[in-house]
Structures are given as C-alpha cells and as structure tokens.
C-alpha cells in the first residue's frame, strides 16, 4: 500500500512503544501512535492523558487532551494533580513512556516549546511547556516527534522548556532530576536515538527513499550516521489499523 510520511511517523513511533508501558500522550499524531501501538504491538499498553483520564475507550480521535472523547470508558476521572503525581510517583512513574513534540530540539534531546528570541521580548511565541516539562522531568523514557528542519534541529535552544539529557552524561543527576530521558526522535525523514555514554543524538535510520545526506541537510548540527539503516515501511496491517481503527475520519492523518 502507498502511505504518507505522517502515516510513516505514526507507525514508527508506535513501534517504539513497549507492551505493558503506560503511554503519556498529547494531541495529534502522538495520540495516533499510542492508539495504533495498542492495536498492533503493545496490546497491554495503557494510554493516559495529563488531563487525568486513564485507559479511555477512545472510540473517536480526541482533538485535544481535554476533548470529552478522552473521558469515555476510562478507569477513572482523575484531576490534573492526580495525573502529574502519577508520573512523579516513584512506583508508577517508572512505567510511563512520554510522547512529546516541540518547536526546537538540541543534540541532547532538550526541547523548546516556549519561544524564539529574547524571553522578555520574543520574536515568536509558542504555547509553552504545558505538561512537557513535567513529563521530561519525571518519566524514564520519552519519544519525541519533530519536523526535520534546520531551524528546528539547532545546536542551542532559544529556551529550554523540557529537559532531555541536558548537557550529557550526569547532567540530569547534577540538576537534581531522576534517571531516564529521551529514547528516540521520530521525524518526517527518519529516526534518531541517543548514545548512552555521551547523551548525544545519532541517526538510527532513514525512512524508505530518504537519504542520510538529505536528513543532515535538514539539521543545524552534525550527528553520527554510521549506525543508520533503512526503516521498514508501514506494513499493510499497520496501515489498516492506523486508517481504520485509529483515524477513520482522517482528522489527524490529513
């Protein structure tokens, strides 16, 4: 089957989710990835939102984490305080994988979703942290969605909204954060992972028909590409689930 890059991104992210994980996700494609994973490779994963809904039925795609569609058939309706405490909690937090997005990312997977320019007089304003800073601070693993773009993959962020590996090995510990950090970055061209010893991003794979060169041209810092391989395109099964079970109205896929 033919597929779009958005579909490839959703499938690639879904493949990153481990069975049994508790998936914190936001709106849009991250929600699709979480929904798809549950139907494909991670049947025992549990989707939960910062708004406090746990394991909702999701019969229709929510267009916001506060969409009433996240409330149907949930195990419980917690408050925001409950949802974030669940991630900071020593026993439940370690089972959570967070899916995040941002306007800028640096080589250590730190994210900016706040603004461009000088903080007191921004050239461009974005929505701000929302729960991203909390998730990045609390959970063991995060998966990051990014558009592959020179202005988005930058050596230094204008504003560090959400902690990744900070400045590398020991960075989080020095700052007082718990263990864990970004595991993968899924873009519209490929997938990056992070080196354990340096905390730096490296290219792990390119999507079908995408060259390493074209990816490097779409980022403002260098990364190791020696481990890059071509990523398998979405299978017919994956596409069918995504299109028919997750977003039949194509509210997010388009």
């Amino acid at each position, binding site marked *: 089957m033919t597929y779009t890059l958005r579909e490839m991104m959703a499938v690639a992210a879904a493949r990153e989710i481990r069975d049994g994980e508790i998936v914190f996700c936001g*709106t*849009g494609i991250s929600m699709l990835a979480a929904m798809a994973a549950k139907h494909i490779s991670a049947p025992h994963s549990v989707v939960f939102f910062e*708004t*406090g*809904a746990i394991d909702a039925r999701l*019969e*229709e795609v929510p*267009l*916001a*984490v*506060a*969409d*009433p*569609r*996240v*409330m*149907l058939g949930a195990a419980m*309706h*917690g*408050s*925001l*305080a409950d949802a*974030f405490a669940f991630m*900071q909690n*020593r026993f439940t937090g370690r089972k959570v994988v967070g899916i995040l997005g941002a306007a800028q990312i640096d080589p250590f997977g730190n994210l900016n979703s*706040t*603004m461009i320019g000088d*903080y*007191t*007089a*921004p*050239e*461009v*304003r*974005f*929505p*701000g*942290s*929302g*729960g*991203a*800073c*909390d998730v990045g*601070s*609390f959970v063991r693993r995060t998966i990051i969605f990014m558009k592959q773009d020179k202005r988005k993959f930058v050596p230094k962020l204008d*504003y*560090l*909204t*959400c*902690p990744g590996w*900070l400045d590398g090995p020991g*960075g*989080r510990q020095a*700052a*007082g*954060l*718990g263990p864990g950090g970004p595991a993968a970055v899924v873009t519209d061209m490929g997938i990056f992972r992070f080196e354990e010893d340096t905390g730096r991003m490296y290219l792990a794979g390119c999507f079908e028909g995408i060259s390493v060169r074209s990816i490097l041209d779409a980022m403002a810092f260098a990364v190791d590409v020696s481990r890059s391989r071509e990523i398998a395109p979405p299978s017919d099964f994956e596409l069918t689930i995504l299109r028919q079970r997750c977003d039949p*109205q194509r*509210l*997010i896929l388009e």
Partner: protein
Amino acid sequence: MKGNADKIMSLEAAVRRFVTDGCHLSIGGFTVNRNPMAAVYEIIRQKKRGLHVYAHSNGQGVDELIGGGCVERLEIAYGGSGRFAPTCIRFRRAVESGKLAVEDYSNYQMVLRFAAGAMGVPFLPVRSGLGTDIVVKWGFGPEMRQADPRLPDQKLCVIDNPFGQWAQASKLVLVPAVNPDVTLLHAQFADRSGTVRINGLPFADVEQAKAARRVIVTCEELVDEAYLRDNPGANQLPFLCVDAVVPLPMGAYPTACYGFYDYDPDYLKAYRGFARDETAYQGYLDRFVFGVADHQAFLDLQEAGQLDRIKADPVKGYAVGLDRK
C-alpha cells in the same frame, strides 16, 4: 458570603460585583473544554481592564480575554487550543507585540500553585523544571515583583532536599501559592447555596476555586439541594467555597460541557480566521460580544441547527460522529 445563603445572581451582576479592573483572576476548564465562556464574554463586554490572569492550560477562554483587551499580565503553562490553535493566536500576537507580560510555568507547577493556595501554604515542592529555563528565566523581574505586594518576590526557588536523599530527590523546585481574587468556573450542576457537581474530568477547577477569595460558578442546571446531597460523593465543591451561582445553559459554549454538548468545531475554526486579522477580529468582537446583551443573545446568533449538531450523546458525553474536519 460563603455560607448557606441563596447565592443566585445574574452573570452581569456577579461579574460587575466581583471582577474589578486590575484584579487577579483564574478561570476553570482546559483548552476546549468547560471554559466559563459566558463569564469570559461578560468580562469583555463590561470592558474590564488590567487583569492579572492565572491559568494552566486554558486555551479558548484566556485567548478571548486577551483578544478582548482585558489582560495585562498572564501566568500560564500552555496557551493552545489543541488542533484548533496549536498556539492561541491572540495570545501569541499580544506577547509578540509586547502588550502582554507572561510568566511561564509547567502545567503541574501551575496546578500545584493553585493547590498551595487552596491548602493555605505559601508553596509546594516539585521535581519538575530542574535544569530548564523555567527556573532560570523570569518574565516578571525582581524589581517588578518587589514593587507589587500581590506577587511573591520570587518566581520560584530551588532548594536542596532538607531530608538528604529521602525519596531519592537531591533538589526540589518550590512554586509559590496563588490566591486569585476571583475564580470563574462552569459546572454541570449547582444548588442555590453553591454546592457544585462537575461531571467528567474536573481538571484543576477544585483547586482553582478553593484558592480564590471569591468564586463565581455558572452552571447548566440549577438543582435542588436534595438532589446533590443524595450523592455527596459526586460533588466537587461544598457551598462554603462558593460566592455566586449563575444558572446558565450552554455557559461553556463554544467549548465543551461533558454530557451536555461538544465543543463547536465550526465556531473554533471561524474564530481562528477572525483571530488572524485585526480588522476581522474587531468585527468578531463587535458582533459576537459587544453586539449582544447576554449569552442567550450570543447563542441566538449561531447558525440554525448548529447547537443541535453539538448536543452530547447522553451515554458517550460528546456528539457522536460530529464532523470536526
């Protein structure tokens, strides 16, 4: 005022009485759900100015207050409305044009600030934000903070864990309590003395209400006290925490109210169009806010059949199969 007296008021009177120019305000709801929109429009209509607004992730309500020119300072975690506005447009314009001073926190930090206010403590600790610019960069400078007794002297502070490595934490961020002058909420049910029942996710409405000096609750249905007291476990606020009760069907429109109506995707898309253009936005305000006497007149302006289209399925809580493209 927070006792068991009858607290029914008109929205016009409640806003006139409790929402004053320059007051510190917080509103309930989250992005496109259960924002107290009728109250927001009334505040714009009464041309309140210089408001200091506290929010966690109120998209539509806060964006319209900003667009209406009511807001001077904003402490917030997230200024977006999901798919309808990844970044709220009037919010973005106001910040980029220097008309709005913003202090950024994380969503949990803002929730904890309301919770601290509700609990009556000056701060609560959190492990979120360590190593980030949320800790380093302040939107409100130390001078401005020292000069204003209604602001804490610090945005936040980082301390070493006084209990050593207890709970595996070496450092904590302490976020200061918020005690707004007024909190506005929209709920499904309330009785005359102000006991409130919210169905579906409560978000941070309960903490925001308890943190505030005054609480105005608009509700879909005014119900008998006995109805709420037959199931006390389903109620979120006791009458002791509420100052004004305003029965107001569709009071959250165009945002959603679980079990009653969905958000209106057409309205929110149209709003995005207006918001992008100054002239169009002025036209929007003139027609939908200043051009109507009250919320009912505003609802009457909506296209025939639209309010029926977003009517919630009683079981699912939202409008099943609603065209949201």
